[in-house]
């Protein structure tokens, strides 16, 4: 039986990927960002899963306005890093887990989540930057990501995006799906995006350190309550792109305590401002 052993939460700022790819991670501006993930890289080496179920959003890369899935699960054998306008990031190809992905798709659709199944998709910084933060710089040709990865893309670009509550319930359905898979896989679920940031208009550059830290607090201790927060609160308090944080609730909903198990252990917590236009938040929660 497969099992979700831990969840990881992190921002996925594209500039972080660029800094790493251009060898700037030791510059004074970036050093504190990457330092916040030193323990996490060590932790991932020691707690290497078989599969990462990686929740992220596409940023007008794989999905244009021609077709916008609310939830899209990647069932392919591999996913190429996307060319977002400057050529693809120099990182390894993402190797999927078609069997577990198809199993989860089948299970959560039967649980009344109306997924879109995707068998061909390039993945943008939303997916690759969290991997880079947690794995460090890798050579696209020589190296590989440490395990298989199932991309799960959430629409947070065009409104209405799914509600926090919907995301939290989906996480619970994903946990049930994983636990009904009959291979003994160690699965992590990652929620990415956020924290507070606004990339548009006169309010661009908005950061809400207080709100972000309260969000981290509630995500740990009161995810059910947090899941009821309406979209407009995210936007008003954490900026128009702060809405990406609803994706963290998918990962949080998949943790054991939500289904009556023991509370997770907080293995790591980190917060930093700024990375380019964005507040960086990061959390690792372990199941027992």
């Amino acid at each position: 039986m497969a099992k979700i052993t831990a969840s990881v939460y992190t921002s996925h700022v594209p500039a972080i990927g660029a800094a790493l790819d251009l060898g700037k991670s030791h510059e004074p501006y970036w050093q504190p960002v990457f330092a916040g993930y030193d323990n996490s890289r060590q932790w991932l080496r020691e707690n290497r899963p078989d599969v990462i179920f990686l929740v992220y959003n596409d940023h007008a890369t794989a999905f244009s306005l021609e077709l916008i899935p609310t939830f899209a699960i990647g069932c392919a054998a591999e996913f190429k890093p996307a060319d977002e306008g400057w050529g693809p990031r120099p990182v390894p190809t993402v190797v999927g887990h078609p069997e577990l992905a198809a199993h989860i798709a089948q299970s959560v659709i039967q649980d009344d989540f109306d997924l879109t199944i995707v068998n061909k998709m390039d993945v943008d910084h939303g997916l690759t930057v969290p991997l880079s933060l947690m794995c460090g710089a890798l050579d696209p040709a020589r190296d590989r990501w440490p395990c298989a990865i199932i991309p799960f893309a959430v629409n947070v670009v065009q409104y209405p995006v799914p509600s926090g509550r919907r995301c939290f319930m989906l996480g619970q359905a994903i946990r049930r799906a994983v636990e009904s898979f009959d291979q003994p896989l160690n699965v992590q679920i990652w929620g990415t995006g956020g924290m507070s940031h606004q990339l548009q208009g006169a309010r661009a550059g908005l950061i809400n350190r207080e709100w972000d830290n309260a969000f981290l607090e509630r995500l740990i201790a009161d995810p059910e309550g947090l899941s009821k927060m309406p979209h407009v609160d995210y936007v008003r308090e954490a900026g128009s792109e702060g809405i990406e944080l609803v994706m963290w609730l998918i990962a949080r909903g998949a943790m054991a305590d939500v289904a009556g198990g023991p509370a997770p252990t907080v293995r790591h917590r980190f917060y930093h401002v700024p990375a380019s236009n964005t507040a960086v938040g990061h959390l690792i929660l372990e199941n027992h």
Partner: protein
Amino acid sequence: MPLHKPYLDIPGTTIFDAEQSRKGYWLNQFCMSLMKAENRERFKADERAYLAEWPMTDEQREAVLARDLNRCIAAGGNIYFLAKIGATDGKSFQYMAATMTGMTQDEYAAMMLAGGRSPQGNRVIGEDGDAQPHRQGRAPHTPSSST
């Protein structure tokens, strides 16, 4: 459309909802086309000619030519799509963000280093924060001259 839009009272913020998306469809699809190198070349070679190939409004075309992202957003553009214009121009995202705020890139970067823009006074239209409409005309920062 009588759907509740509780986000309309947030200053300096345009939510990319179904209505904006319909309005900006071709503007955003034009931006998407810049993901291909050959399209970027054609656009750079003759911006007006390339824009004329898309069924956009004149206002959308003018806003793109002027690199006025706030006008682009008002005309239905979404920042993730519009960012591809900046990428074509070889501009950083922080540069683009700055142009929407009436700050120079340096001023904007300094604001971010100092902890970013405060939500204080910027939550609801009518407060007195720096992102309020009534403070956009007379911002302490002069708008960047490089567009």
